[in-house]
């Protein structure tokens, strides 16, 4: 009964979404805009971490402070991406439910968030656990860059390949 009710809500939403070009534009903008904000800020921080690691500036508190501030922007952007993503998913439920690419993208988003949590924790521990934390920061920054691009690639393929 609950599923039937949710499906009915999704059908009504799908109809509204399909009939309103301004709504489609707004939600697509929120999704892409959130991605640009979160992904852009995250990549900037990843790049700073990798540069500091390569220059062996492992005590670099400036880099760690930047990463910490960036974390808030990334979380805010991701919240917008997820909220608009739920609306996009509900507007075309039957397509996305059976789409392998969609679920691969969701798995990548989860991996991105777990990686972000590990990176943030390593950033907090870096001043006291020097070498080990910087190794973690180095590898999670590389993983973060790769995951952002991979998620974008799958997201772009989704409407074309399904």
């Amino acid at each position, binding site marked *: 009964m609950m599923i039937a009710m949710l499906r009915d809500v999704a059908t*009504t939403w799908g*109809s509204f979404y*399909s009939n309103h*070009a301004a709504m*489609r534009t707004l939600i697509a903008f929120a999704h892409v805009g959130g991605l640009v904000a979160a992904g852009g800020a995250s990549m900037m921080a990843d790049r700073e971490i990798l540069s500091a690691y390569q220059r062996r500036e492992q005590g670099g508190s400036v880099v760690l402070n930047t990463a910490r501030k960036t974390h808030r922007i990334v979380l805010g952007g991701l919240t917008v991406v997820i909220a608009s993503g739920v609306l996009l998913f509900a507007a075309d439920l*039957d*397509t996305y439910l059976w789409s392998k690419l969609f679920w691969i993208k969701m798995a990548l988003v989860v991996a991105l968030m777990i990686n972000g949590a590990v990176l943030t924790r390593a950033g907090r521990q870096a001043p006291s656990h020097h070498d080990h934390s910087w190794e973690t920061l180095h590898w999670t920054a590389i993983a973060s860059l790769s995951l952002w691009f991979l998620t974008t690639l799958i997201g772009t393929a989704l*409407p*074309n390949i399904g």
Partner: protein
Amino acid sequence: MIGVAAFGFAATDAVALPVAFGTGTAGAGSSEHRYPVPDTDGVTIDRKNQVIVVRYQQHLYAFNLACPHENTALKWLPKDGRFQCPKHESRYQPTGTFIDGRATRHMDRLGVRLDNNMLVVDTSQFYRSDKDAAAWAAANVALTPGV
């Protein structure tokens, strides 16, 4: 205020048809798929074989699932009674007739025939409205009243 009609589709034109998902059974040839004839008007989407079966106003139709514009899988909007492409929003009537959007032709129809109260769809018989309008128009099965 801009109403729905401004987008080329008036709400009064809508017919609420239910949607179902299913897979056709293999027919005689490798390109043939068999579907039970729907009891009432409605839409059946077979994602595996990329076929849409429609019963509408005593006629049966089969369509290619892909939008003729950029080959994106079409979706059925039950509350609006029409097909719509999620990519560029081309809209089509239940008969596959183009309403508006970026597409430049009707939905592509497939060859259909009845066999022992089963609808046989032949995906090798592919009809484009811009290449062969007469064959496209003829690609349907008229049901006798009471069926």
